[in-house]
């Protein structure tokens, strides 16, 4: 079926059928659960961007990402939910905590966690939120997701579509992940080690090697102080 006929089919049937079977003021159990988990998620996100304790921000981010995983489960996208738990809660937050520790983030309240333009940022964010929520609610007022029947995001459906229609982007993504891995290693190794190996490879520069290698820990210490 082409897109135009699908759209015509939707416009012909969806609002009337939806208005018959759904009501605004009679939410289903899934909607109530979605709303409650959404409130927890949104509150945790607010705390994440406003708390002054940096480690607490990372831990509230765990609550936010976990809440989003529950929302994915409520939307019957189970595979995405478990990927979210594994990658975000499992690795990204751990990476962020490592980053906080390695940059010597202060334990406890840090008074300069927010910059001076926070009121401008608050204005922009509230204006964007008001505009987006207004547009979204106005656009999808009469649209309902049908959650009955077979799950739309089961592992079987996701895997079939991923490996039937999305194989080439999937493989390209693996190359991108490899490039990111190599890039992160190159960025995070010390530049002095690269200079030392370059000096070792050329025998003429061997005499200059010793001051460089002695200078390494000094500038390192000075940089982190």
């Amino acid at each position: 079926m082409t897109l135009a006929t699908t759209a015509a089919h939707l416009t012909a049937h969806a609002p009337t059928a939806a208005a018959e079977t759904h009501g605004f003021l009679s939410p289903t159990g899934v909607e109530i659960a979605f709303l409650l988990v959404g409130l927890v998620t949104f509150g945790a996100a607010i705390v994440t961007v406003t708390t002054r304790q940096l480690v607490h921000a990372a831990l509230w981010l765990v609550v936010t990402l976990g809440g989003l995983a529950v929302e994915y489960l409520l939307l019957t996208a189970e595979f995405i939910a478990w990927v979210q738990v594994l990658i975000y809660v499992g690795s990204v937050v751990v990476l962020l905590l490592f980053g906080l520790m390695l940059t010597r983030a202060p334990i406890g309240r840090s008074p300069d966690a927010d910059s001076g333009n926070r009121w401008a940022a608050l204005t922009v964010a509230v204006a964007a939120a008001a505009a987006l929520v207004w547009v979204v609610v106005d656009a999808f007022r009469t649209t309902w997701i049908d959650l009955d029947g077979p799950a739309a995001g089961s592992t079987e459906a996701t895997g079939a579509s991923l490996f039937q229609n999305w194989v080439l982007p999937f493989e390209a993504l693996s190359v991108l992940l490899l490039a990111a891995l190599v890039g992160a290693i190159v960025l995070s190794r010390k530049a002095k080690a690269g200079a030392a190996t370059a000096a070792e490879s050329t025998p003429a520069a061997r005499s200059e090697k010793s001051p460089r290698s002695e200078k390494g820990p000094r500038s390192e210490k000075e940089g982190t102080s």
Partner: protein
Amino acid sequence: MHLAYPAVLSALLFCTGLYGVLARRNAILVLMSVELMLNAVNLNLVAFDVWLSKTAEETLHSGQALTLFTIAIAAAEIGIGLAIVLAVHRNRGTADIDKLRDTSELHDPDGPDSDALAAEQSGEAQKAEATA
């Protein structure tokens, strides 16, 4: 389920992340806010994919596939971003975005890295002076 619930939650999360990106000062907190914005987009993609997979006759499940790609790219992004933040912290001694005004390391008169570079380029006499 009403489609407005996930759409509104996604919009609110995106604006929360927007506030965090604009108002935070630590680079790692900015990265956390970027993660929030990416997750808001993911929620939108999943919700609309579930909606379309029931209303349209045939679907590629493009929303869920793109969500998986976004998650992988976000993981790569957070790895690269943290490596950059750690390199900046090693060179400048701070991860504070408001203090990172210079794009170049060389013309910073009182930065901790400039004298190390100068000592590296010159000879043994300056090295003795620098370690003293």
